[in-house]
Each structure stands twice: as C-alpha cells, then as structure tokens.
C-alpha cells in the first residue's frame, strides 16, 4: 500500500529491504585483501567489508539514509583504478581486486581527517558529544597529534539556539549532510540544506532563518544522525539542578517508557536492556522528590482517546453527523502534531483533541496531585524524561497551562538524563532497583508499549474492543501482532461482534486502522486522506520518529533499525510480564475517574485539563 516516495530513486533510503534488490540475483568473484570471495552483484564494497568483519571508517554514511559519498573517509584501493574509491558508493559489478589497507589508503584517510579538523572549531572536553563523536573517534583512529593543515581558532558562525528542541552550532559541522538527508528523505520536512559553494558551503535553513521560525517539527532526528555536536538538543539540566537544590521546590520526574529501554546504552550496555528500577533509584539519588510513571498518563490518554473515538463513531453512524471527521488520528507525538499543523492545517479536525501523556500528567500533577498532597502548585516543578526532542517544544506551547501553571516545566531527553546521572557520580547499571512512587506508580503494559510504533494502536484496541464487546481482544496473550514491527505503514482490522447494548450500533463493524511512523510515511497517509482513500478507516496512529519513541530524537546515539528493534523488544517483553495489560484495568485510572474526573472520560473536567486545541500554522515562512 505504500506509495512512491517523492524522492528520486537515487535518493531513496538505502535500507536492508532494497539492498537485496540491488543484487540482481547474480554473483561475482572478487578478491578482498587477497581473499577470494563470491558476493552478490551490485553490493557495495562497504557492505561486503562489513559482511566480512573488515573495518572501514565512514562519516557521511548512515544505515537509515541514502548514500551520499561526500566525506571520502571510506576510501579503498580498487585494482586498475587510478584513484582511490569510496567504498560506500562503489557497487561491485565486475571481478575486482580490493585492498582496504595500504599506505596510500592510510595517508589519504589521515589527510581527510586532518582537512576536516583544520576547519573544525571546538574543544572536545567541553562538548556534548565528547566520547560519542565520530570525528573525534576518527582523529584518534588516524593518530592525529598535530594539525597538519592548521586549525581555526575563532568561531565562524553564531550558535542558533532559538529552538526549544535543536541547537545548531555550525562551527562543528563537517558537511556530511546526514541532517539534510534525514530531514528531507526520512522526515519529508525539509528544513536543512547545504547552501553556497566551496569554502563558503554551510548547512542552512531557508534564507538562514532561525530554526524556531521555520517549519522544523522538532523531531530531533537530525541530532541523532549528526556525527558531531553540530546539532544537539537544547539542554535544560542546569535549570533542573537549580530546582533540585531549592528546598522550597517539590521536583517531580515522570519517566516515559522508551528512555528506560535505552538509557543503559549510555552506560555501555548493549541495546535492549531495560533499566526501569535502576532509573528510579538514580532519580531519587539525584534529588527528585517524586518519581512517577508516564505510563499512568498513557493509560489516561487511552481512556480519553478511546472514548473520543467511540464518540465520533456514534455521532457518525447513529446521528449521521457529517461534521465528524474519521478516521481519528492520534495526537501523542508532538513532532507529528507540528507536522500536520504546518503541512495539513486544513486537516486538523481529524486529530484527536487528547493531549499527549506528558502534558496530561503535568496537568494532573499541578491540580489533582497538588490538592491531594497539600502542596502549592506554584512550588511544584515537573520534569518529563522523554526520548524526544519535540517534547521540549510541546511543554513550551503557550496553550499548555490548563492547570493555571505551566503544566510541564522541562522536557529532558534520555541523553541529558544520563548526563545528570553521570554528573551525580552514579553508575546506572550498578544501582539497586526500586519502584515508582505512589499514587501514580501503577501503570498497565498498554501504557508501556506506547514507546514503540503501533503501541498506541495496540493499547487503544485492547481497551476499545473490551468497552464495546465486553470481552478482551481476540488475540493470543493480548498481543496484536498486526500493530508491531518496523514496516513504514501497517494496516489491519478487527471485527466487532456481539457488542454490548450501548454499542450495538457498531455490531459487525470492521474496525479498520493504520499505523505509520516517520513523517515521510505520515505524508503518504495524509495524501491518501486527501485523495479520499481513507474512506472506511477508523483510527490512524502516527509517530513522527522512525520506529516510534524508541527511535526518538532524544535517544542515545547511534540509532539504527537493528538498535530500534532491540529497544522495542525490551518494551514488549516488559509489557508481556506486566500484571495489568489494559489501560482501563489500571486501578489508579479507575480511582482518578472516581475521585477527580467525575464526569468520566471526555467529560467537562477532563476536557478542560486533558484536551487541547491546535494551531493552523501552514508551510509558508514570511
């Protein structure tokens, strides 16, 4: 069902799927460092080397992106060719002899690093990417101990920190254009491009406009793919330390599902190790007064969004109300929300009005929780640990103050949390486990799987199906496999049968849904909507980041499809082991509706605190 992407074939992401297609079935014999091999025709030298555990340094190459071949780091010798060849962009089509190490190769690569450093302004020890920087690693790999071609001592550019999410420090840019390819090909947003020529080349926004004033959706995917610190997140940890040190402040941390599945990577663990308990301990040792589970408010989101969907269905089917927009689109990904506000402002009515779990939690903490615990909401500081850069923008939206205060004060990424933990002198994997604080320490597995693409859909179906039919979803172990996996756009349906009386109007309905991740795929879905091809669909989940939140722009670097799969696996395993697996069965959710949101999901009180409205932004920049 996936339609052609806008980009020409040469610029399509070069992912595992189409690598296999490039080999047209035939094989060719080559010699690699003197060893005879048979390889698929058309496979690149780089891939062949990786298949054979031969290290090739790369910079502009990234698994998720199309080939650019502009950094020249991956040079190798190909017999019969006068010049060295770039391994990443050399498809093998004849029986060549390749040498990946020789004096010529070593010197050329060293020169390239040297040339890059000659224009690179920055000091590693005061840099956010210290020890996690691909340029720094290459400088070490090629034994750079002096600047053969000189070194800039003055900054050439001003740092652009206008955006809540992404800071651009072009003095550290090596012009690999990974960000360009990310923003255009992977996300279809198109904020960044290289401008000018030769020495004056730089990565720029449209007419050099500050990032906050362009169509950037704050997804942070460019940060995750930048090899250096030229792009990094806007870090609020200084303000958070200050709040922690202030005894009059009650500082609360809510932690999203994805950071716990990935933060171990920041401490040297392989991807896929869940650190939930250790993270709670670390947060307390750092000085947070309470640690709550965002999954609780994910459950709350499901209640609201699910009820909203049933309400829309009822209006459309029973009342024949033409003004009701279906399918309903999810609204928990702030990158996606800004994407639709910019590119499809006339379609905003399709978006659920439910706030994201982060914002719902903030509103609940500064009202319900403040009241129950007798703390002045003005003294409450809420911090959200998120896998996401766009959450920083979201919590700063002016309309997000339904509690009478700024609902969420700071959005903190997984990387920044790891930094705070290190700074506190702690080694996360060595810490004992502890659980979340009451009263928001209980959450269902449904809230947990929000972290992966398809998770919101799966969680919503578990609840909606049961509300409508009175029975659990008819899938083995409640696992809705159709929602899972890394396919760009997934679709499936569940038949609603033997509905309870209240929902008899849905009897026999095939509940049809779509799950998409990465805004390039969102664009495909939106274009289908415009062409009327989504007639008969009921619910669409969209996540701005490839893989969903586990691949979010605030997650540990590097990220790739295989890493995202491992993180997702950790989340699904934890869900499988949860005692409560459905949002509506979370006892704390029942409690909050009994005590506080007394007129039920989508009632008046919840509308005030848990729902929001959107801005028609449009794509023109003035």
């Amino acid at each position, binding site marked *: 069902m996936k339609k052609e992407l806008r980009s020409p074939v040469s610029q399509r992401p070069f992912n595992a799927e189409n690598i296999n297609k490039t080999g047209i079935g035939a094989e060719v014999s080559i010699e690699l460092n003197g060893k005879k091999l048979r390889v698929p025709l058309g496979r690149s030298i780089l891939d062949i080397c990786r298949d054979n555990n031969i290290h090739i340094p790369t910079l502009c190459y990234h698994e998720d992106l199309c080939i650019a071949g502009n950094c020249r780091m991956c040079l190798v010798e190909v017999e019969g060719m006068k010049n060295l060849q770039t391994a990443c962009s050399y498809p093998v089509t004849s029986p060549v002899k390749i040498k990946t190490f020789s004096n010529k190769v070593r010197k050329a690569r060293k020169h390239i690093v040297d040339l890059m450093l000659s224009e690179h302004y920055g000091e590693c020890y005061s840099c956010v990417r210290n020890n996690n920087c691909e340029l720094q690693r290459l400088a070490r790999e090629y034994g750079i101990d002096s600047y053969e071609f000189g070194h800039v001592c003055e900054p050439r550019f001003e740092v652009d920190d206008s955006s809540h999410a992404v800071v651009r420090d072009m003095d550290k840019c090596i012009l690999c254009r990974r960000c360009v390819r990310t923003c255009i090909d992977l996300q279809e947003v*198109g904020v960044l491009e290289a401008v000018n020529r030769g020495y004056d080349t730089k990565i720029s926004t449209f007419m050099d406009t500050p990032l906050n004033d362009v169509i950037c959706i704050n997804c942070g995917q460019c940060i995750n793919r930048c090899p250096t610190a030229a792009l990094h997140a806007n870090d609020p940890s200084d303000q958070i330390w200050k709040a922690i040190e202030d005894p009059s402040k009650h500082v609360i941390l809510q932690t999203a599902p994805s950071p716990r599945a990935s933060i171990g990577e920041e401490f040297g663990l392989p991807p896929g190790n869940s650190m939930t308990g250790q993270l709670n301990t670390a947060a307390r040792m750092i000085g947070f007064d309470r640690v709550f589970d965002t999954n609780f408010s994910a459950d709350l989101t499901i209640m609201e969004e699910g009820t909203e969907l049933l309400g829309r269905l009822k209006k459309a089917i029973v009342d024949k109300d033409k003004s009701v927009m279906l399918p309903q689109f999810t609204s928990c990904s702030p990158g996606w929300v800004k994407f639709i506000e910019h590119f499809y402002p006339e379609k905003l009515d399709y978006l659920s009005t439910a706030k994201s779990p982060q914002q719902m939690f903030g509103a609940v903490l500064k009202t319900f929780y403040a009241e129950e615990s007798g703390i002045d909401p003005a003294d409450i500081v809420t911090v959200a640990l998120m896998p996401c850069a766009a959450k920083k923008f979201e919590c700063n939206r002016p309309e997000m103050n339904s509690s009478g205060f700024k609902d969420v004060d700071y959005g903190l990424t997984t990387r920044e949390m790891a930094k705070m933990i290190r700074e506190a002198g702690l080694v996360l994997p060595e810490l004992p486990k502890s659980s979340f604080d009451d009263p928001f320490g209980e959450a269902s597995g449904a809230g947990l799987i929000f972290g992966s693409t398809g998770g919101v859909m799966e969680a919503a179906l578990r609840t909606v199906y049961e509300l409508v039919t009175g029975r659990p979803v008819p899938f083995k172990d409640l696992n809705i496999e159709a929602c899972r996996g890394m396919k760009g756009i997934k679709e499936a349906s569940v038949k609603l049968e033997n509905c309870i009386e209240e929902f008899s109007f849905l009897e026999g309905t095939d509940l049809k849904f779509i799950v998409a991740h990465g805004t390039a795929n969102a664009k495909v879905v939106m274009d289908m909507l415009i062409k009327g091809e989504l007639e008969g669909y009921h619910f669409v989940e969209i996540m701005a980041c490839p893989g969903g939140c586990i691949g979010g722009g605030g997650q540990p670097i590097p990220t790739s499809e295989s890493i995202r799969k491992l993180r997702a696996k950790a989340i699904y395993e934890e869900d499988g082991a949860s005692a409560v697996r459905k949002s509506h069965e979370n006892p704390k959710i029942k409690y909050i509706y009994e005590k506080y949101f007394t007129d039920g999901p989508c009632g008046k009180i919840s509308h005030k605190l848990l729902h929001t409205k959107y801005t028609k932004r449009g794509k023109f*920049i003035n």
Partner: protein
Amino acid sequence: MNDIEKNKRREFVSELMNKYVPDRTSLLPILQDFQEKFGYIDEYSQQLIAFELDIHPVEVNSVISFYAFLYDKPVGRNIVRICKNIVCEFNGSKEISDAVIKEFKINPGETTPDGKLTFEHVNCFGLCDKSPSMMVNGEIFENINKESALKIIKELK
C-alpha cells in the same frame, strides 16, 4: 511584499508550470525565466515554486545560492562581473576590480544605493586566452584594462 506583487508572481509561476513539466527537474529553467522577469527570486516566490514542484523551499534556496548567476536578493539595473580567477588575476584583473571598487564605492556583491549597478567577482568565464575579462549585463568584454572597464561602466544607464 504586498498582495499585488504577490499576485503577479503567483500568476507568472503558474504560467511557468504550464510551460515546463512541473517536476523537480525543471527547477533551473523555471528559476532562470523567473529571474529574467523579476530580476531576482524573492523568498515568497521561492516557496511558491518549491510547493508547485513538490520539493522543499530550502532546496530551491540551496540551488539559487549554488549558482553565481541566480539571485535571492534585489540587484541593480546593471550587473558587472569581473573575473577574479588565476589567469585574469595574473593579467591585472585585481587592479581593475580595485578601481571599480574605488570609483563606485561598492564592494563585490554589493549594489550602489541608486540601484544602478551591482558589482561581482566571478570565477573564470572560460575566456582565459583573452583575459582579463568582464561581463556586463550578459555581454562579454575581453582584454580589458582599468580605463576601458571604467569607461564601459560609466556609460551604463
């Protein structure tokens, strides 16, 4: 930019979309035609063209910035380009440029306040055998010197 100006540009862009295949491959001729008519490609029109071709405004901007003969800012009524590349420089182009800078009080890349003249340095016209060379409003002048160059420029309207 006011709405009247915007409308003019919108109309012309839609004419161009009929003239060429509305596809990213048509970007350069579209930009050339647009500049021919309006002198430069303003921010608004860059975005219009991008959306018509289903590409991103920043890509249009990138193309314009890459080509020395495409402008995203207003230029003077006359454009004088002097080659600064190596052969011309050996044959004295720097002296000629310096004289222009002094005489008209503008730096390379600038336009005189009265909007009469934009002066630019360029890299090699491919006329090295007849260097130093200069281009005035698309017309080539070969083997120039300080005096002849100033005279040509002064005669411009």
